[in-house]
């Protein structure tokens, strides 16, 4: 292992890529070829599955729906978490430690526990089947996570920064927006990355809170698998397309991740 340090990461990455390759492979095959013969790559290369997805509104609107609630959730979570994380990192106040732990407990609540009550709650307030409902519901675990991450980053910024700005006569909000937020930009990037990630990959709540208008792509995929026969090629193409937004986000935050992880708590 010491002699060839490349071996372990390389083997690991090959292991990670194999199922993804297989999914892509299937997505370029016709259903007949998938069920008919076992081939390591598509013999009758076809884009049919992708064309179906891009031309059929019941398919592609799913992607828009998913991206809509993910973006709303990420913006809300980071925006409300910023002042809260600042309070936790800078001040003692009545019940602060208990409050912090209570927030974290919501990151531990199994979505299966909340699925049914969530359905009733969001039906009662008239938000059922809207992206906003899913965005707010995902806040249950994303807001505490964002507070946790940002608090870690803010605690590593020396308090002298705040005091200097105060002495220089900056009003608090001007200091917060103009100086403090740019200082912890990496932390905001990491927090947004995690909010995006956990909102994008979650299905149980997203599926429970939508029926037609705001149905996420992941839920549309489960429907296809059960009702219109077993269209594996189509399923594989839809699955492959869900990897793309994540890949984009990772690419943009790749430099923050290693640095960000090290500075913050997560």
């Amino acid at each position: 292992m010491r002699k060839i340090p490349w071996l372990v990461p390389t083997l690991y990455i090959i292991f990670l890529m194999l199922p993804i390759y297989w999914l892509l492979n299937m997505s370029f095959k016709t259903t007949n070829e998938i069920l008919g013969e076992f081939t390591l790559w598509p013999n009758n290369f076809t884009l049919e599955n992708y064309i179906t997805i891009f031309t059929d509104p019941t398919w592609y609107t799913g992607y828009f729906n998913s991206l809509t609630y993910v973006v709303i959730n990420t913006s809300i979570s980071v925006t409300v978490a910023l002042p809260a994380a600042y309070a936790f990192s800078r001040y003692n106040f009545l019940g602060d430690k208990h409050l912090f732990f209570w927030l974290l407990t919501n990151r531990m609540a199994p979505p299966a526990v909340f699925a049914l009550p969530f359905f009733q709650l969001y039906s009662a307030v008239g938000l059922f089947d809207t992206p906003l409902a899913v965005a707010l519901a995902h806040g249950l675990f994303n807001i505490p996570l964002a507070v946790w991450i940002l608090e870690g980053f803010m605690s590593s910024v020396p308090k002298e920064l705040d005091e200097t700005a105060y002495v220089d006569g900056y009003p608090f909000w001007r200091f917060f927006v103009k100086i403090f937020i740019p200082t912890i930009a990496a932390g905001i990037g990491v927090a947004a990355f995690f909010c995006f990630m956990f909102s994008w990959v979650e299905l149980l709540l997203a599926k429970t809170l939508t029926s037609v208008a705001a149905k996420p792509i992941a839920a549309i995929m489960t429907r296809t698998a059960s009702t219109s026969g077993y269209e594996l090629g189509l399923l594989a193409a839809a699955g492959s397309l869900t990897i793309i937004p994540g890949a984009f986000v990772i690419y943009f935050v790749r430099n923050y991740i290693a640095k960000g992880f090290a500075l913050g708590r997560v």
Partner: protein
Amino acid sequence: MAVKSTNQKAWLFVLPVVALVAFNALIPLMTVINYSVQETFGNNLFFWEGVKWFEQVLHSERFLDSLGRQLLFTFTILAIEIPLGIAIALSMPHRGVWVSVCLVLMALPLLIPWNVVGAMWNIFALPDIGLLGKAINSLGIDYNFTRDPGAAWFTTILMDVWHWTSLVVLLVYAGLRSIPDAYYQAAMIDGATPWAVFRHIQLPKLKRVLTIAVLLRFMDSFMIYTEPFVLTGGGPGNTTTFLSIDLVKVALGQFDLGPAAAMSLIYFLIVLLMSWIFYTLMMKNEEQ
């Protein structure tokens, strides 16, 4: 850490977070508590039942079986993913373009929707059309995860290792980068073996990130629902029915609101208790 000043106005900063999370957490929690102590026959008629459902759940073999499977699953994947993650992070390149390439490729499984992960592994492991299934069967081992409980467990665990080991790798890698070079130079001067460097320099510095990794992996694997549901549907039989799958079956499948609510609360309390233990340990580490 800087000394904090006491300021009750800080509550104003926390208020939006508290309001949003409380809306999502307290109202549903009250609903669940409400259901857990009542019996309903529809038409919004409810009858007080006290702790009947709790007794029923705690004495039901089905719940205890699911809990047992859940514990076995969670501890198995922790036992594999944590050491494996450390080993991979230790052998990662330290600088250069390859770091970015490794990080991007390794983070990829983390951002795939959970049902796609399940569907992907289903296609990958099926004995007739899957690469993994075909490969194992061609070695002369009879492998079919839809029929054989052992194979189903093997596939579910392999899927989770595939899905989440990268999280441990990223955390540990970040922890390793935060160790100043001077530590390593000192170790080199002393002629320390690689094992001694790991045991006395790297491991103590990794304590914090490892606690976070264990905590996150514990919580998330204990709540796992979508991936095994799509992969095996909880089968064959009930052999891969973990707590969340069982709960959804009771709550949405059979619509037994009372028992489902009682089960939810017991489930939540277990996660809470275990996480509280981890959290306390973590805070202790940080104070030191």
